[in-house]
């Protein structure tokens, strides 16, 4: 007996369901990002998410191949797909755990790791695939009101980006998949016809969600992460764990955790035993605390004491003060006024508000003012003040013992760009110094880039006698570089020389130093290090940059990747030196970005071409569909990613600025989509909107950096308003092009609609990976220009779309 027809639904239910599903999957992306960053590394998380997002593209492909069958059962399938997405989302962490332990560091040594990686991709792609299929099905089956549905999709996504930031503060990370899955259940219920298979599916999904909430699966750090090594020590204890959008903070205590970072070999006292703080399983700092004035401070026996030897600073700026070990040294040295800047608010709150006793209340010392913000936003505000003149600005220690295998290559380091150094220079007192300590590394790359940055800075200031302004002091493990605003006088030079002799350190750079004195205590078998230093101070820079086997040009605000050194053209030389197995670890982040882009390109190509088996290869304007939706996918994401990175510098807080930019852009685009209900999808409209979008992006590209530079010192509230104004109009306009395009396909090329959704999804993901690589090589401005070029193509394709 045939089933009775399904009752009609209220018109608001489907759009609301789409919004809730979009909210859940966008928020889930950020949850996976956090989970995998804790268990493995940030770049692995990025790699998995990028592939998982192709689940959306695969949904478009499937719908294009089987649209009649799927659309026939639309009302029944829609809630089932939401439930499937909810169930797989809640169970993803558990499923990934069942498949064995993937470890990124073994990827290039063990073949089975490749299989585990593929399984991870699949598991994390499932929730996106099911939700993507549900949403694309809704777009296809209710194409008459595509403007409203796309509005719901974008506004839901924007809300998800904001909500997850709050949830990450409030709830443990392991509970969040279960919580987000409830949104998908709600989406299912909103479109829920009363049929028994749905009751069963609902119950099963709720059971899985309940299990994920009652038996949460916290991420387990790789055994090669620093926290795993610390926890294996005898009597080691995890004494604190907390979560926030900034990541997971853990504190480990063990009787053998000693603080002795590259101390002088003349130092014979027993180093203090202190707890260690980890962020996402990586070493962040030791909770060193205060030392009595008469007690020996261990860091006074390291090269880090150099700024206090060169002079007695009274006003000090400490950047990325973290757990306060540099602060402890500064207070021990009697500095009277210290500004400590720490961008991780979670960490700052923990050490200032929640557990100041962990570091003997260092941040509450009367001489200290803690600024929980990014370096650049602090520098911009400080420049706006009438009289600032620091005796010393101390940057955070760069690298770690033995190097960091290049896992930070893709991170933006706005505090190490040419523009940042210029700001610091302006904030120095006439006799002030800029100091940074770095761990020795093989091959040397941080030191050459730093010297190149400082040489360019000095040359901009019209200073030619570079050697009179620079000091480099080396121990067996670290090297501290000092840049003095005034030429170093003989008294300061003598003090440094005396300190170096007493501690057994070698002055690699110091006015008047003799060649034999440069390697008295610590010798480098490879003379290249000293040669490099000398060349960087005296030889033409262009030739030095060209001949060095790594890219050591200074980072800039347009290319803020200080720790990215690989260059495609020099890979051959490095391969000869290091071989295939070790080469990836020189800069794992960069290699993973390349691998990610390649695999996404290949899978996207496959997913885009597959529907042509149904649509045919020859007929019906497919090239215009491909061009139009491919260009919208690429253009939107190029614009979004470049904006996020540039506004990150402007707004200061990386977590909130990413959420804000995403939310504003998506919601504005959603409103744009909603407004298309009043427009006709005529070729002239598509041409006009496409051209206007390209023009607006071009204008934003040209005006953005000067505008941001001029308003950088404003209060955060004003800056948020500027960002709203800046993003609202382009966002609004960009949001019109996708729904107008889909409507233009209807009715003549109605079969193209799911394919178009798949193309847009696949190329959006591809754009994310490509944008990263392009920004690394050419800069963020160039990525924005490419976005403008994409919208020109949209305009051209719009004229022929659906005809």
């Amino acid at each position, binding site marked *: 007996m045939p089933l009775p027809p399904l009752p009609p639904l209220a018109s608001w239910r489907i759009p609301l369901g789409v919004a809730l599903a979009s909210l859940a999957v966008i928020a889930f992306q950020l949850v996976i990002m956090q989970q995998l960053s804790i268990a493995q590394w940030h770049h692995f998380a990025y790699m998995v998410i990028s592939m998982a997002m192709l689940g959306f593209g695969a949904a478009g492909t499937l719908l294009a191949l089987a649209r009649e069958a799927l659309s026939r059962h639309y009302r029944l399938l829609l809630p089932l797909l939401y439930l499937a997405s909810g169930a797989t989302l809640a169970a993803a962490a558990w499923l990934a755990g069942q498949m064995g332990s993937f470890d990124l560091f073994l990827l290039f040594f063990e073949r089975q790791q490749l299989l585990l990686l593929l399984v991870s991709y699949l598991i994390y792609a499932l929730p996106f695939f099911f939700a993507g299929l549900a949403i694309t099905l809704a777009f296809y089956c209710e194409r008459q009101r595509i403007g409203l549905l796309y509005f719901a999709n974008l506004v839901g996504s924007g809300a998800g980006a904001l909500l997850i930031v709050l949830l990450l503060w409030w709830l443990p990370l392991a509970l969040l998949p279960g919580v987000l899955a409830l949104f998908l259940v709600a989406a299912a219920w909103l479109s829920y016809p009363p049929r028994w298979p749905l009751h069963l599916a609902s119950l099963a999904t709720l059971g899985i969600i309940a299990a994920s909430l009652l038996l949460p699966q916290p991420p387990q750090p790789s055994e090669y992460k620093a926290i795993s090594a610390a926890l294996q020590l005898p009597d080691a204890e995890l004494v604190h764990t907390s979560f926030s959008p900034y990541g997971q903070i853990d504190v480990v205590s063990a009787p053998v955790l000693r603080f002795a970072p590259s101390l002088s070999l003349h130092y014979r006292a027993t180093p203090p035993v202190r707890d260690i703080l980890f962020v996402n399983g990586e070493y962040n700092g030791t909770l060193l605390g205060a030392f009595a004035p008469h007690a020996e401070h261990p860091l006074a026996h390291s090269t880090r004491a150099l700024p206090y030897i060169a002079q007695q600073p009274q006003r000090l700026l400490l950047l990325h003060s973290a757990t306060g070990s540099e602060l402890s040294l500064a207070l021990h040295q009697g500095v009277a006024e210290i500004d400590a800047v720490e961008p991780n608010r979670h960490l700052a709150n923990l050490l200032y508000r929640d557990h100041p006793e962990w570091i003997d209340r260092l941040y509450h010392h009367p001489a200290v003012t803690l600024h929980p913000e990014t370096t650049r936003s602090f520098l911009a505000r400080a420049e706006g003040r009438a009289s600032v003149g620091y005796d010393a600005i101390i940057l955070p220690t760069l690298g770690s*013992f033995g190097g960091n295998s290049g896992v930070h290559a893709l991170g933006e380091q706005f505090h190490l760009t040419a523009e940042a150094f210029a700001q610091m220079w302006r904030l120095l007192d006439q006799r002030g110094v800029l100091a940074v300590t770095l761990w020795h590394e093989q091959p040397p790359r941080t030191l050459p880039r730093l010297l190149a940055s400082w040489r360019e800075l000095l040359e901009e200031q019209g200073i030619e006698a570079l050697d009179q302004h620079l000091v480099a002091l080396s121990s067996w493990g670290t090297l501290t570089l000092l840049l003095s605003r005034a030429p170093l006088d003989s008294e300061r030079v003598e003090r440094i020389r005396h300190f170096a002799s007493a501690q057994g350190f070698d002055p690699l750079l110091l006015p008047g130093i003799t060649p034999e004195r440069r390697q008295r205590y610590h010798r480098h078998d490879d003379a290249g290090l000293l040669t490099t230093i000398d060349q960087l101070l005296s030889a033409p820079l262009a030739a030095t940059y060209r001949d060095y086997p790594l890219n050591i040009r200074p980072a800039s605000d347009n290319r803020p990747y200080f720790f990215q050194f690989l260059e495609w053209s020099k890979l051959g030389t490095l391969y000869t030196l290091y071989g295939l197995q070790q080469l990836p670890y020189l800069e794992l982040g960069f290699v993973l970005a390349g691998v990610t882009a390649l695999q996404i390109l290949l899978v996207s190509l496959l997913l885009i071409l597959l529907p042509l088996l149904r649509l045919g290869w020859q007929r019906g304007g497919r090239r215009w569909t491909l061009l139009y939706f491919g260009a919208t996918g690429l253009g939107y994401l190029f614009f979004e990613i470049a904006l996020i990175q540039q506004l990150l510098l402007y707004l200061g807080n990386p977590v909130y600025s990413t959420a804000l930019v995403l939310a504003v852009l998506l919601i504005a685009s959603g409103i744009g989509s909603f407004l298309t209900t009043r427009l006709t999808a005529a070729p002239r409209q598509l041409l006009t909107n496409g051209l206007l979008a390209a023009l607006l992006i071009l204008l934003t590209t040209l005006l953005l950096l000067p505008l941001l530079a001029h308003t950088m010192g404003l209060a955060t509230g004003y800056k948020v308003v500027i960002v709203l104004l800046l993003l609202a109009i382009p966002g609004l306009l960009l949001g019109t092009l996708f729904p107008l395009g889909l409507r233009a396909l209807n009715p003549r090329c109605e079969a193209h609609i799911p394919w178009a959704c798949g193309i847009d999804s696949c190329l959006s993901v591809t754009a994310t990976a490509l944008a990263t690589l392009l920004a690394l090589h050419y800069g963020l401005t160039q990525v924005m220009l490419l976005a403008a070029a994409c919208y020109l193509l949209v305009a051209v394709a719009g004229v022929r779309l659906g005809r």
Partner: protein
Amino acid sequence: MPHPYQLLPAALLLLPALLLADDYREEREQMVEQTIAARGVTHAATLEAMRQVPRHHFVRPEHQGRAYGDHPIPIGHGQTISQPYIVAYMTELIAPEEGHRVLEIGTGSGYQAAILAAILPEVYTMEIIPELADWGAANLRRSGYHHVAVKQGDGYYGWPEKGPFNGIVVTAAAGSIPAPLVEQLADGGRMVIPVGSPFQTQMLMLVERDGESITTRSLMPVRFVPFTRSEEP
């Protein structure tokens, strides 16, 4: 007397080991020729030790087939057995010779201690992780290196009652060169520490004691030419 069919299971069980025993000798020879001697290690005793010590006894069963490859191998607990070239180079650096007493910090699988024990009669090794200390000691016993003294404990303080040492090999370096180890170094003694991730090319650090003078050297296992001067004016 057992019936022949009762011997069959035991024979089948031993068969793989019997079949594989000689194969590894060939692999060891290849390892020494192609990845160690070819890259400049010349110390005869070290090369002979690398030929003798059954490296496959010092890896987990699932990795035995890859034991002689030129790469590190995971041994659990976040540790690895270093690639053969690094082990040979570190051994050559401390220049072990008759009458020397050496200490290793970070037993791990026991392979480095076994190489040292193939050259010297007096080898001491310490491991902080109890499970690894037990496993490393078992591997050494299984391979016949009964004269290696294994101690589970904190390597920071060294083994003062057995010192001074002519050579110290630290395989578990962590940001500092412990002062007690420097003190336990005999006059003219050498301490070697690999620096860097086990998956990367590791830079080796050599600490040398000459009376009260302590000097350090950064050595390059893979020669890196960091800068070639432009030939243009």
